[in-house]
């Protein structure tokens, strides 16, 4: 038991490591604040474009979404970070993360928004049109709010996944929470910093998981 505490919950190590862990937590939050709006905006744009009637617009969009959902995010990130310099484009770690995340999470958000838009009955848009609303008004005021409500659990779930996913930025030396914890662990030969990072992730994300469980149950109850 003592060995276990010493290896994972050493106060001595934690008191030394917490400033850089806190730094990392800040970076994780900052990174999330950048990539979530970026991905959501990209996804919404994809979904709105895919409401086009022409299949010459819709099919390339479906292909785009499927390709970037098929590539593991870490593969995209490594490709952007390690590959682009060979094409003469030097990208910083945060630039690579922004691009990689935009491609991946944009595709996921796009698929969710698209499902949401499709879930709104056509009668809603027709009724709005009969009342004399213009196309952008119909989308922004009538269809989109209902679409978002219908897929809210999926949107929350994806957002949770994106925050968790920021941990892969550690692979390209972004000094976020996991990276800092790994640094501290390799200096001290003790797993306490990683344990502390895990606890921080859990405290940060547990409320979101609970909220998600509740939303999912509510959605299920309404469908029964």
């Amino acid at each position: 038991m003592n060995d276990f505490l010493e290896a994972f919950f050493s106060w001595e190590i934690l008191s030394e490591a917490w400033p850089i862990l806190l730094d990392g937590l800040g970076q994780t939050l900052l990174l999330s604040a950048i990539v979530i709006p970026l991905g959501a905006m990209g996804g919404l744009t994809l979904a709105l474009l895919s409401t086009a009637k022409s299949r010459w617009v819709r099919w390339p969009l479906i292909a785009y979404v499927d390709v970037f959902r098929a590539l593991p995010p870490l593969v995209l990130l490594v490709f952007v970070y390690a590959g682009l310099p060979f094409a003469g484009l030097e990208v910083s770690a945060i630039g690579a993360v922004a691009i990689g995340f935009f491609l991946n999470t944009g595709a996921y958000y796009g698929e969710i928004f698209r499902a949401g838009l499709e879930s709104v009955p056509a009668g809603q848009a027709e009724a709005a049109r009969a009342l004399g609303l213009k196309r952008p008004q119909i989308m922004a005021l009538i269809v989109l709010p209902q679409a978002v409500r219908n897929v809210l659990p999926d949107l929350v779930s994806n957002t949770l996944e994106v925050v968790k996913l920021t941990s892969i930025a550690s692979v390209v030396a972004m000094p976020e929470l996991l990276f800092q914890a790994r640094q501290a662990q390799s200096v001290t030969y003790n797993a306490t910093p990683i344990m502390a990072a895990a606890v921080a992730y859990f405290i940060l994300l547990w409320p979101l998981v609970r909220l998600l469980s509740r939303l999912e149950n509510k959605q299920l109850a309404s469908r029964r």
Partner: protein
Amino acid sequence: MSNWDKFLDSFFNARVAAEYLPKIIDGFWLTILLAACVIATGLFAGLVLAVLRAMGIRPLNWLIIFTVDLFRALPPLVIIVLIFFGLPGLGLEFSGFAAAWIALSLVLMAFAEEIYWAGITSVPKGQWEASRSLGLPFLVTFLLVIMPQAIRLVIPPLTNRTIAITKGTALASVVAVPDILGAAQAGVSFSFNPTPLTLGAAAYLLLFLPVVILGRWVETRFAWKR
């Protein structure tokens, strides 16, 4: 050399591709093996948790809910790193493959339990009561009465979640597993040319694009009737 030639020479270099293709193919099989292991253990463990939860023992259920929440909240890479770099401190050494297998299985277990559970609770209580009045034991009721009704509801989200978590096998490259990404990265650093990464990306597309399209099909096939 024009810019275009330079680009081709970097990302589609035939000589480098020929040299590293066998390594990528080895990685391809390793990725499939890891994915298969994760899917088998993760889905099974999730089902076991769901069965236990259906028995309705209060303290046990709290423990299950906490475990599920825990592995839904923790990033998979953090769990992998914790197992691979943390547990040796207790004298428990795991290979990178084992660490990734355990970590991703725990994550899939958590998500799968949640989905099975949603399916189970969607089946009306009367079904449990009717089976009980017919004298069916718990496990028989669960497997032959409840599950067949729940499964239709469960398949689309379970398919999508399994695909998403299986893509996490690429994380194993961080703990030195020579899977597709691991082999590709090693290739890049040896050849100082990004062609192995192009091959790697192509290998992932070959593996996951059909699965993603299958997921799309499953979603429409088992869609909600409104």
